[in-house]
């Protein structure tokens, strides 16, 4: 073997080793969670990387708890509402910010960007008072409101950037055809903005689905909780026992919808994130 061939082989091997490391780093925790969730609790603390037998008792346990099913329902309600509201407001705002010339447009954009820089903790107590004042405490609507506040800046910013790239003449053609701004948005721009909407919508969904701090603070009873809080509050038989099996089963259950959504939209996400990067 010549040294050149050896070097090529070494490069190739090195590349795949690196890929393997990255894959294990990214996927192994989730894989181990799946494995753990499918083990009976008696085998929980014997380390093994393969499944010898399937045991779905953990899943049965969590789904037999009415509060967990209720939490999934709450999470779906909250996340979908956040996505719907954020996209509706985002698209209309991006039309105004991307298409209508008015004084102070840049200022508005900068304020939007500035708002998104506040950490959640900074506004937590203030927001708590607002939600109490509005009578939304321990109510999914309170979560929808607070998540939308944090999702909107990103949504508006991305959609505005995308909207600015749509050719001006397209809008003018619609105006010549007699379209009102609303018709222009819904009939002409929306069909072209699907990639950007899929991206921002999915990111908003994931953020709302995973959010913990607000969900913990703004809800009180089991029937109003969302999944992340519900999982954290799953308790075992005694104070000193953490029920790892059901926790893992619950985690896997709530991860699956996200994985499916990302798979459905993955192509659009890529085209949404890179839109306008190259002319095409």
């Amino acid at each position, binding site marked *: 073997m010549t040294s050149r061939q050896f070097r090529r082989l070494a490069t190739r091997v090195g590349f795949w080793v690196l890929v393997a490391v990255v894959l294990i780093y990214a996927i192994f925790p989730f894989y181990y969670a799946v494995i753990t969730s499918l083990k009976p609790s008696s085998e929980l603390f014997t380390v093994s990387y393969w499944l010898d037998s399937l045991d779905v008792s953990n899943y049965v346990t969590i789904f037999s708890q009415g509060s967990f099913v209720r939490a999934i329902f709450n999470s779906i309600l909250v996340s979908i509402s956040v996505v719907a509201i954020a996209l509706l407001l985002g698209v209309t705002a991006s039309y105004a910010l991307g298409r209508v010339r008015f004084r102070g447009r840049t200022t508005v954009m900068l304020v939007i960007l500035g708002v998104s820089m506040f950490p959640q903790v900074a506004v937590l107590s203030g927001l708590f008072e607002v939600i109490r004042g509005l009578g939304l405490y321990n109510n999914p609507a309170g979560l929808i409101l607070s998540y939308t506040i944090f999702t909107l800046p990103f949504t508006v910013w991305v959609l505005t950037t995308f909207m600015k790239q749509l050719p001006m*003449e*397209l809008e*003018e053609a619609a*105006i*010549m*055809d*007699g379209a009102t701004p609303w018709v222009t948005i819904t009939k*002409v721009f929306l069909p*072209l903005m699907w990639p950007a909407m899929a991206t921002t919508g999915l990111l908003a969904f994931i953020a709302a689905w995973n959010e913990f701090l607000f969900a913990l603070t703004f809800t009180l009873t089991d029937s109003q909780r969302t999944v992340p809080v519900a999982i954290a509050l799953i308790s075992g038989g005694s104070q000193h026992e953490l029920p790892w099996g059901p926790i893992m089963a619950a985690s896997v259950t709530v991860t699956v919808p996200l994985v499916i959504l990302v798979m459905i939209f993955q192509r659009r996400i890529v085209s949404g994130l890179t839109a306008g990067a190259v002319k095409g």
Partner: protein
Amino acid sequence: MASVKLDKLNKVFGHDHIIKDVDLGIGDGEFVVFVGPSGCGKSTLLRLIAGLESITDGELRIGEQVVNDLPPRERGVGMVFQSYALYPHMTVYENMAFGLKLAKTANETIEERVMATARILQLEELLHRKPKELSGGQRQRVAMGRAMAREPRILLFDEPLSNLDASLRVQMRNEIARLHQRLGATVIYVTHDQVEAMTLADKIVVLNAGQVEQVGTPQELYQRPLTKFVAGFIGSPTMNFLPAEMVAGTTEGCRVHANGIGELDLPQDPGRHGAGDALTLGVRPEHLGLAPASGDNSFEIVNVEYLGNEVYIYFEPKDGDTLLIHRSEAPSCWEIGQHAALLPSVANVHLFDSDGCALALISTRDAA
């Protein structure tokens, strides 16, 4: 179809006065071309007529109606954009039907009109394709179809051919001309290409810095430009300009002297100009004769371009740095480095004063 009347039209953007007191009448069924260099306001003027920009001052009438404050859809205008601006997610049929649908036209009427338009533009085969599956020329036709389907009173074209390659441009130019003959529609067409303007227009409007320089038929503009700007803009290759001086002006005409040409007796009325006034002599490349050099009155040949049917000969000018051009039928026996005398054909020479205004001809009746 309708006529259009512009009365002291003005457009101001912030501090920029883009359109200045434009007066213009466009007859029913006329093909009018706005032409001028980039930034002259021709596109803005078109957009004012379309209703895409608001009119700062003045009055715009379409037919008998003042339309200053009407939105585009109520003006009865259709527009073809430079980039076509077809709706990418709609088929050709949907593109053409969009405006009609918004106008709440009955479905049968929509189909009838779209099909009729498609037939005229030979788009019948393409009705179910999306714009991305069409060639440049086809997209151009769809853009025209979309503008025509609503049966507007006026069709507006904003540099519609500038995205096409040269051969397709000639072909589409012909199609547009034939379409106009067939439909008899009032058309306003914006271009920076004077060849398009000359070939398509019934009437050309030359714009410069937001003002109308001259309005006339292609022939009038070519043969009798009123200003030096129009003279230089219309015609390819461009008119030759030489600095000249008035030697004597009488009711019979002018005697002028130009460096390198000598003295010429021209049939122009000197008007208020007297001996010693600085003028500019304008001669088109085909109105120059060549003779062997004699004395001081000669120019050096710096380049010869052979174009097959024609030959362009370039001369080093005495003043300035714009080469003088002579145009004649091929073949030519002149070569680079030779000197030749330039003999302008007196009947076709133009004289411009220092403001760029043309001196009028003494009319034939007066001379006789």
